[in-house]
């Protein structure tokens, strides 16, 4: 009979209609955003942020500009600090990330040899002016290491273990090690090692 398939289809919509009342947990799949928010996965990546240990001027970044050359849309801009005599210090004076151009691909986090730049979980960052507000300066980028531990515990443990292993290896060799001018190309592996634990 002509209308049979149509009826079957309408029963499906009727069932979904009733399901939203009988069993809202399963029936409704939308979330009332401002009041309730969906939990983020640990590895969720939004725009990058810089990490400091303890106080903001103890910034971990050594201005080696690897992430600047590695970033596909070229949205990171670094000027290293210079002390009185003009010698380049291992601290960035200016570290801007243009949030308008950054496409949160996460490559900077992977290639950073000093674990100083990570992807954030903060996604409510809309601003009114694209030119000034979205060109985020160094001060705005800085976040404590504990913040990273809070948002991504798994990665935090893995990086801590790796840093502990590295510092243990560096201590017995020769404590007065000459600070290498330019970090060589192949420091420790980025995020995943050859035999990574279950990340």
């Amino acid at each position, binding site marked *: 009979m002509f209308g049979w398939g149509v009826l079957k289809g309408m029963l*499906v919509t009727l069932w*979904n*209609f009733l399901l939203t009342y009988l069993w809202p947990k399963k029936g409704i799949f939308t979330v009332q955003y401002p009041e309730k928010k969906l939990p983020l996965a640990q590895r969720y990546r939004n725009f990058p942020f810089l990490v400091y240990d303890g106080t903001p001027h103890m910034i971990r970044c050594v201005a080696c500009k690897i992430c600047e050359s590695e970033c596909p849309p070229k949205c990171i801009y670094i000027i290293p600090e210079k002390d009185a005599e003009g010698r380049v210090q291992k601290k960035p004076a200016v570290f801007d990330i243009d949030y308008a151009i950054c496409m949160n691909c996460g490559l900077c986090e992977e290639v950073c040899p000093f674990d100083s730049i990570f992807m954030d979980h903060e996604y409510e960052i809309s601003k009114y002016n694209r030119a000034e507000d979205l060109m985020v300066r160094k001060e705005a980028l800085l976040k404590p290491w504990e913040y990273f531990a809070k948002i991504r515990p798994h990665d935090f443990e893995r990086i801590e273990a790796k840093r502990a292993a590295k510092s243990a290896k560096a201590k017995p060799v020769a404590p007065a090690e000459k600070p290498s001018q330019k970090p060589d190309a192949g420091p420790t592996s980025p995020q995943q090692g050859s035999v990574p634990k279950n990340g």
Partner: protein
Amino acid sequence: MAETIDQIFVLAKDRFLDLLGIVLPDWIILLVRILISIAVLLAVAPVVMMYMTWLERKVLGRIQNRYGPNRVGIFGLLQPIADGIKMLTKEDIVPKNADQVIHFLAPVVIVIAPLLVLAVLPFGRNMIAADLNVGLLFFLGVSTFGVIALFMGSWASRNKYSLLGGMRAFAQMISYEIPMVLSVVPVILVTSSLSTAAIVEAQLGWKWFIFTPWGGFAALVFFLCGVAEVNRTPFDLPEAESEIVAGFHTEYSGMKFALFYMAEFISTFAISGLAVTLFLGGWDGPAFLPSWFWFGLKTFILILIMIWFRGTLPRFRVDQLMGFAWKVFLPFTLANIFIAALWALLPYPKNFIADTIGITVILTLLQIFNRKETPKKRKYLYAN
């Protein structure tokens, strides 16, 4: 007590008129009596329309596993008012080479037909605005007026999409008007009167026409033609969003667009009201609830079915739409008149048998003649 609740509106109107009668001459009372029922209709219709848009968005939402508007007021009850204000404040764009006069006139004219038509619907026991003895014919006659206004809108906005929409609306309205009128003929034949109040009288005491064999199918055909008349899914060709952007009201914005919207929803309410009056026994229902409540409930259920259609069914193509009207509905309604005549003439046991035979014969005939169009089941083969 139940009697007073049932007649509460009629009594209120009479007492109000008696009050007025003291101070005003009696010929003005005559005028005021008519004006009151008109005023009530003009006030109730837009409110019903607004809360039908709210109902549609909530039910569609629930069908699609989401809530539907719930931000403006509790359960989104103030949403229609917010929409109304939005429509009022929206800028009203008129295309440059549009035909100014007709472009302005079309939304005005399109709202007249649905409002006029409400005058004839029996909302409750002797709660009918104008009890014409040609009530039903009045309904069908005036509802043809909408086609012209719709076409004025699409012709005046000088836009290819609205022209396509206008042409489609024309073809659809004309070809679905005839089966609609013909499907109503058996009801007139059985009640031998055109006045809607008389039709409801004939169905009092659960003797609704939908339970009779010919009435059930006639109600189905009438309801589907009503859906087509009102341009709702699955017959919403004239304003097919996915093909011709917004059909005849592409070039309208602001309050004019709201008027087109209002016309569509009030005529949905009117068509469901008429379907209830003709086949579902109008305001007839068990006495413990007032008569106007029963009319409202049945119309509400029919509107829900129309919204349910909108949430589920894809839309027809133009030639299938025409084919459906001319090759399926028209022959069926013609045969249905004959079957209804059989039902009216033969005594009780024989007429049911005769009707069922008649209906099965006509349905199988339709099935045979339309088998070229009916889609077939498909086979698929697997390769690896």
